[in-house]
């Protein structure tokens, strides 16, 4: 019996370790980890890579404008007027205002993080990649991390949009209950 518990315990510990390993993000590799052959590979392909980066930067700029506009309008044309209406009618709107202010903060982070990402992409494109392949590689690693941060901001805003929607749903059901 004791050995069975020990086996189960060891199994659980191993599963926990494996899960933790799977969830831990892969450490961003830097140019210092590359062999000279790999650096040569970067040097050989870097002009094509810069072309791909240029196209990505253009499509991301469009995404930034369209998504940014939508996220901003969600706040200024829906959340804020609804909060004001609740307050005008003396309805307890604390949860709503709290969620919308957290949303506004996330929107500000999105703007700042996108700016930082775009500047990093610009830096990567301005590097003489055939002369400095290591520096170019590091610039891409940094841009990758910054793009992930922008994606996290998007996820956070989506989550807050969802939370706000649930609050409205709750208000609707409680209003139906009182009517």
């Amino acid at each position, binding site marked *: 019996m004791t050995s069975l518990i020990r086996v189960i315990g060891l199994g659980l510990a191993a599963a926990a370790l494996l899960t933790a390993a799977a969830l831990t993000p892969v450490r961003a590799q830097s140019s210092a980890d590359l062999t000279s052959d*790999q650096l040569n590979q970067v040097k050989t392909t870097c002009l094509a*890579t810069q072309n791909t*980066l240029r196209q990505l930067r253009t499509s991301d700029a469009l995404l930034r404008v369209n998504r940014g506009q939508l*996220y901003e*309008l969600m706040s200024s044309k829906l959340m*804020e007027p609804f909060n004001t209406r609740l307050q005008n009618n003396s309805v307890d709107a604390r949860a709503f205002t709290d969620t919308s202010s957290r949303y506004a903060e996330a929107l500000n982070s999105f703007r700042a993080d*996108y700016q930082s990402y775009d500047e990093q992409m610009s830096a990567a494109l301005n590097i003489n990649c055939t002369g400095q392949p290591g520096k170019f590689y590091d610039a891409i690693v940094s841009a*990758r991390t910054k793009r992930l941060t922008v*994606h996290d901001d998007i996820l956070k805003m989506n989550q807050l949009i969802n939370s706000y929607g649930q609050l409205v749903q709750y208000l609707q059901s409680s209003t139906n209950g009182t*009517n």
Partner: protein
Amino acid sequence: MGDELKSLDGETEQPELELSVWARHRYFVLIFSTIFVALVLVGISMWMYYASGAVQLDLSRPGYSSVAKQVTDDENTFTVYSSTGPVNSQSINQFQQLYSQQAKNAEGVDAFGGDPLSNGALGLPGSN
């Protein structure tokens, strides 16, 4: 009285006025100070353009004209919810309809997701 001189034929002559450095070069100074002020103002505007993040929203820049036409006109098509009026089942329902439609639009696209900057996608060596 002392400044006025009488010539031989008796007419009064005005003495030649000594011009100051400013007076002698006033056009030169005016033109260059105008250019200097213009340059400073352009410098400040460019700094504001970059620092405020407006540059990222400006798709009229060279290289972005191909996507500029794809900008959606949400500003004019987005329905505004009125901040005045009662809060009742009907008004909340109206809000919910507007909200869920836009929420679906927002959540429908996995913006900046995926990993187009991965080593694999860019043909670079190393495992990300």
